């Protein structure tokens, strides 16, 4: 079971960017042996997906292979006609996509889609495919493996779909599976279970794999060998354990050090409570159950409270209640000692001014038809009644504070990078001179190193301006990096809250422990260890705490 399976040499791939062909994969090479798992890691624009997909002889629409060679088992894929490539895809090389929910056809059952590859490629009859489907679903720990195949994709949860997709890839016993960020769209506790199942199945079937991810810790758990890519170039390549313990390149080191804890001096100051949420319960119109149940939270001036939870925990709903977009059924919100009315419309302008919000997707948080100076300038006019000259001066000042040049004031959002957009959103929030800024997953859509910069900026601004943050996130690493206090939410309730040290050290509440233990670590073997401990019942699982 050894020998080179896949040998990619000097592969050059170009993309059509606004009518011009520009290289996005710069003469990259890769070899993959039987049964080996190689990890491709990099930030967005690294070319990792494009490079990974080339193992199927496939490029996304708008891309083309210019030169180089892709040898699969001694067979050249570059220049091979479509009919030849079709006999390889789904047969010799299979693919697992990032969003299983979108990649399963909504019109067919899981079983129909499983059977398609093996039956169409002439490997199995429909009956054999069904038997193999049940067996693989069982191996991937899907519930009711005999029956779940009869369901339609929308009737199955995200984590289960991702496992079903892995089963589908294994269905025609391929030599190689390309995993393209298969767990990125999942919650952290689900992710770890899916990762465990994938790893087990891949090892059991002795299949080689290309594992693409932006998360070094995830790749560290899955891969034997790692390639670090950036802007279509190879930065570093090596055995997983070597690369993680002794990175040679600065860029790799930066990726490894992402979201390290920031030293925060714990200022002793009088407890000046700014936001006080008392007994809040809320539901969306037409819903029969509460999305928030009896929430109590205090935010102290100049401090950061992180609200952490997975999807469905109610953390974003809480932001809507605080801002007045969703009036609560019960409970009250006090701001600087004054009661805030439930409805946005009935709140006085100065109450709106003192609570500002920053969103996850900076792209859609700014009007694409407004210039940066209008975006930042509007709160200045609106709240502070500034005349154009004073306003422009202040816009320049704010641009300096967010570390962007003054020329940016004339730009439209589309002319900014992701990180720059988020900085402009921060400036817009600051322009109102707020007391509290609600940050809703502000770093989740950003590359790790860019997100680092945003976190640093937010902390610096807090030191200077004494503003408080209510930081809503699903990412434990972010919480560790910036929080003073932590509120853990689960299914609409506060599970645990308190100072950072208290929450992050034992004894843990069961859900907090599950959450913390599910965050992938860089240590190779950590996943195997966790899976075996969970099997023995030494570590909590989602089932054991009843989620």
């Amino acid at each position, binding site marked *: 079971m050894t020998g080179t399976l896949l040998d990619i040499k000097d592969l050059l791939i170009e993309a059509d960017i606004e009518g011009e062909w520009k290289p996005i994969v710069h003469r990259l090479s890769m070899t993959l042996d039987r049964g080996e798992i190689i990890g491709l890691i990099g930030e967005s624009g690294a070319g990792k997906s494009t490079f990974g997909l080339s193992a199927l002889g*496939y490029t996304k629409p708008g891309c083309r292979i210019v030169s180089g060679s892709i040898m699969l088992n001694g067979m050249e894929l570059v220049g091979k006609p479509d009919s030849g490539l079709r006999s390889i*895809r789904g047969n010799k090389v299979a693919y697992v996509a990032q969003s299983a929910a979108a*990649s399963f*056809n909504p019109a067919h059952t899981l079983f129909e889609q499983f059977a398609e590859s093996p039956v*169409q*490629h002439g490997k199995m009859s429909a009956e054999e495919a069904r038997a193999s489907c049940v067996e693989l679903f069982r191996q991937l720990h899907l519930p009711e493996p005999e029956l779940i195949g009869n369901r*339609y994709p*929308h009737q199955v949860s995200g984590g289960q779909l991702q496992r079903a997709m892995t089963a589908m890839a294994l269905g025609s016993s391929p030599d190689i599976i390309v995993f393209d960020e298969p767990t990125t769209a999942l919650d952290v506790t689900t992710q770890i279970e899916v990762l465990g199942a994938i790893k087990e199945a891949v090892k059991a079937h002795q299949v080689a794999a290309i594992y693409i991810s932006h998360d070094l810790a995830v790749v560290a758990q899955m891969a034997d060998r790692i390639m670090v890519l950036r802007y279509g170039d190879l930065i570093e390549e090596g055995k997983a354990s070597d690369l993680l313990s002794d990175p040679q390149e600065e860029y790799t080191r930066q990726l490894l050090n992402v979201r390290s804890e920031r030293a925060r001096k714990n200022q002793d100051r009088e407890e000046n409570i700014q936001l006080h949420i008392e007994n809040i319960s809320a539901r969306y119109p037409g819903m029969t159950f509460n999305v928030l149940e009896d929430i109590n939270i205090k935010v102290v001036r100049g401090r950061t409270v992180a609200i952490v939870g997975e999807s469905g925990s109610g953390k974003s709903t809480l932001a809507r209640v605080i801002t007045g977009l969703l009036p609560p059924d019960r409970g009250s919100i006090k701001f600087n000692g004054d009661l805030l009315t439930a409805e946005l419309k009935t709140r006085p302008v100065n109450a709106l001014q003192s609570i500002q919000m920053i969103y996850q997707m900076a792209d859609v948080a700014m009007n694409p038809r407004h210039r940066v100076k209008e975006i930042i300038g509007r709160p200045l006019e609106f709240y502070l009644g500034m005349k154009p000259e004073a306003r422009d001066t202040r816009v320049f000042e704010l641009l300096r504070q967010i570390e962007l040049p003054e020329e940016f004031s004339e730009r439209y959002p589309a002319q900014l990078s992701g990180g720059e957009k988020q900085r402009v959103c921060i400036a817009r929030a600051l322009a109102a001179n707020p007391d509290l800024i609600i940050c809703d997953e502000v770093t989740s859509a950003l590359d790790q190193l860019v997100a680092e910069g945003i976190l640093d900026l937010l902390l610096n601004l807090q030191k200077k301006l004494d503003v408080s943050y209510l930081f809503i996130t699903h990412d434990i690493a972010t919480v560790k990096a910036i929080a003073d206090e932590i509120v853990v939410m689960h299914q609409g309730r506060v599970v645990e809250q308190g100072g950072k040290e208290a929450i992050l050290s034992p004894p843990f509440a069961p859900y907090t422990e599950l959450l913390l233990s599910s965050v992938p670590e860089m240590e190779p073997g950590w996943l195997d260890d966790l899976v075996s401990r969970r099997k023995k019942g030494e570590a909590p699982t989602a089932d054991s705490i009843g989620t």
Partner: protein
Amino acid sequence: MNNTLPIIILKRLTMGLFILFGVSILITVGVEALAGDVCSAVLGQAASPETVAACQAQLGLNQPVYVRYLDWLFNVVQGDFGTSLANKREVSELLSKRMGNTFYLATAAAIFAVPLGIFLGVVAALYRNSALDHAISSSTLAAISSPEFFVGYILMAIFAVSNNWFPAISDVESAAGFWSRLYVSALPIMTLTLVTVAHMMRMTRASIVNLLASPYIEMAKLKGMKPSRIIIKHALPNAWAPIIQVVVLNLGYMVVGCVVIEVVFVYPGLGALTVESVMLRDLPIVQGTAMVFATVYVVLFLVADILSMLANPRLRYRK
């Protein structure tokens, strides 16, 4: 989220009834405006005030609008649309005969147009950006851009004037037997087919091409599936909802679009009747035909909605 399909459909049906009720009010308002001087128009300038008053009394025009509306509604529910002002015939009798003619035209056109439109749409999507696709797309663009009378007169010039293959005037009243009826109405059927095929083909193609960017289509490609299988097995089942919408709406159009085509070929259908009676200010007929057209529309909107719900697996199979 606990709405099951039957409940959604029931809601939609109630909605349809409500809309029909609103439509009947709106049509009455329009017809009221039309009625303004119907008596003096019918009796001529020389009529004495007394005869005009007598005429108005006969039509019930001296009663308040809502009384007349309720009377009319009450009768219509019982199938009585009143009597024609022009020839004193029962409106319902006239309507049913003309309706039969128009539905014959629409059905005949639909039998050709629906399969052809969908087939051409799938073919154009499959060979998109090929010469075949461009040819289909540009000819259908020409067809949807032309007024129906243009298409009608061109066909007439070719098939009835230059070559004496089909009659220019569709005298179905005197045509006996299935084949002779089809023969005399061949040109209006062809016109209607041409115009609607174009719409259905374009929509079918667009719905399929829209879906081709979906991740599950890319997945199917990466599973090594043939392009024809991708279109038919993976894209088409998900494109049914918009295709059904456009097919059903075109069926509605076939009934309503007949107006112009019927005038062109002097075809004795509901559309021609509407135009004649609007000119003659024959109120009961106008009210009746407008109501029939609106009902066809409302019913077809309903059918389109319900069918596209049924075509959606997310609605068909609940969690």
